[in-house]
């Protein structure tokens, strides 16, 4: 391998690589966050206990059926196909001509949301039943129990899975090149269109991807540790009470 050539390609094209990497990161960050919010909302709705009244029960059933369809569709089809369907479909069917960046955010967000919905639902049902019971016994209703007791624990528990989604998104945004989003893969493709040095150019892209995913996992791991709080505690105030 000619390292000199790799170096030259990088020095000649670094602004394009950097812009591509920037686009990839921006899309991944925003979409993972939006996807997590979508997943959290759906996961919470899907774990609402069966209501007493018939009407509420019917409404909840319909809503859950819609969510199930959404999850099955977006988990069961490739994102590259979803991108095509949404980007061209919205133009053809609804005459909406989406900005490529907005389309990218939309596609990755709803795709991530489908996975996150299941991750959140799993997170909620894995919380010990005793936590719900203790919250109810103290007089909290379902919403109060969720907000004050259950969800904080769920969010901590699903952080590793969310980080995983984040890493997947950094890599999978590369499929968005099919709708012309100028992320890292698209930029690399443009570069090779000029220099025909496929191996060297994509090798640089791979290193940039690796740097991004590696950095993100480290940052999130640090964040997890901070959420866990201190490992020790101090006894309080013997002297005060004398």
């Amino acid at each position, binding site marked *: 391998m000619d390292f000199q050539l790799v170096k030259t390609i990088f020095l000649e094209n670094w602004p394009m690589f950097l812009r591509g990497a920037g686009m990839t990161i921006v899309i991944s960050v925003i979409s993972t966050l939006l996807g997590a919010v979508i997943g959290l909302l759906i996961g919470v709705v899907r774990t609402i206990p069966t209501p007493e009244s018939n009407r509420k029960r019917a409404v909840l059933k319909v809503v859950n059926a819609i969510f199930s369809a959404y999850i099955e569709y977006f988990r069961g089809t490739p994102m590259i196909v979803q991108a095509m369907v949404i980007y061209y479909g919205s133009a053809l069917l609804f005459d909406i001509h989406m900005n490529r960046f907005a389309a990218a955010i939309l596609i990755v967000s709803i795709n991530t949301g489908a996975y996150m919905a299941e991750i959140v639902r799993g997170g909620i049902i894995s919380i010990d039943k005793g936590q719900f019971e203790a919250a109810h016994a103290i007089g909290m*209703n379902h919403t109060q129990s969720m907000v004050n007791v259950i969800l904080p624990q769920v969010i901590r528990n699903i952080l590793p899975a969310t980080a995983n989604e984040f890493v997947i998104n950094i890599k999978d945004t590369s499929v968005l090149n099919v709708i012309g989003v100028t992320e890292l893969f698209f930029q690399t493709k443009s570069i090779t269109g000029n220099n025909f040095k496929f191996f060297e150019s994509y090798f640089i892209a791979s290193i940039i991807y690796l740097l991004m995913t590696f950095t993100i996992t480290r940052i999130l791991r640090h964040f997890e540790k901070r959420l866990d709080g201190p490992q020790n505690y101090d006894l309080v105030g013997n002297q005060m009470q004398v």
Partner: protein
Amino acid sequence: MERILEIQHLRKSFGNNEVLKDINFSVDKGEVVSIIGSSGSGKSTLLRCINLLEKPTGGKIVYKGRNILDNGIDIYAYRTKLGMVFQQFNLFNNHNVLSNCTVGQIKVLKRSKEEAEEIAMKYLRVVGMDQYINANPKQLSGGQKQRVAIARALAMEPDVMLFDEPTSALDPEMVGEVLKVIKELAEMGQTMLVVTHEMEFAKEVSDRVIFMDKGVIAEEGAPEQIFNNPIQERTREFLKRTLKAV
């Protein structure tokens, strides 16, 4: 004597399995009532029905003159009047000791943070856990967790405390510290309903003992009667079995 709870013809079935069959008893203010009986006799289910963690199949639960199984009763407000202590402690894992004792007061009773902390500290002192306010549940021993759970329930200042086998999940050496706290509460005049396997304890603290067998109250009376002169044959059988084991 003010009547706080009156259970009338209470029934509970899980599918075809009738766990509680026509339960009747009452609790007056300041009374300590123990419920004893073998595993599967329905003691815990009875307690969980009283605060509606299980939905009774039939009957009435009359709290201060109102049947709380009627439609339109605010069961969340009712539950704040009952303090529940679980076998498995169930401290909120995402809250430290102090916050476990304040979150219900702040979110449900709408007390201010300062007031809630003051009340929480008062009860944490009662159970001897006031030094541990910054600790997280996972850093505590079983006995310490259960004492915090008792303080959490007391901090809501309930009319009745319900104990669901509070020492059954504890190591033998920690049973004493929890029973001591419950005994102190009894002396302070707290109304309590205690499901327990600790016969000596039940004999000592109770004003009244209820012996349950196969979903019915087989015998009810003063501790001296139940433990020394039981009328029913099955009460005698049960006591012979459990006391021999000790």
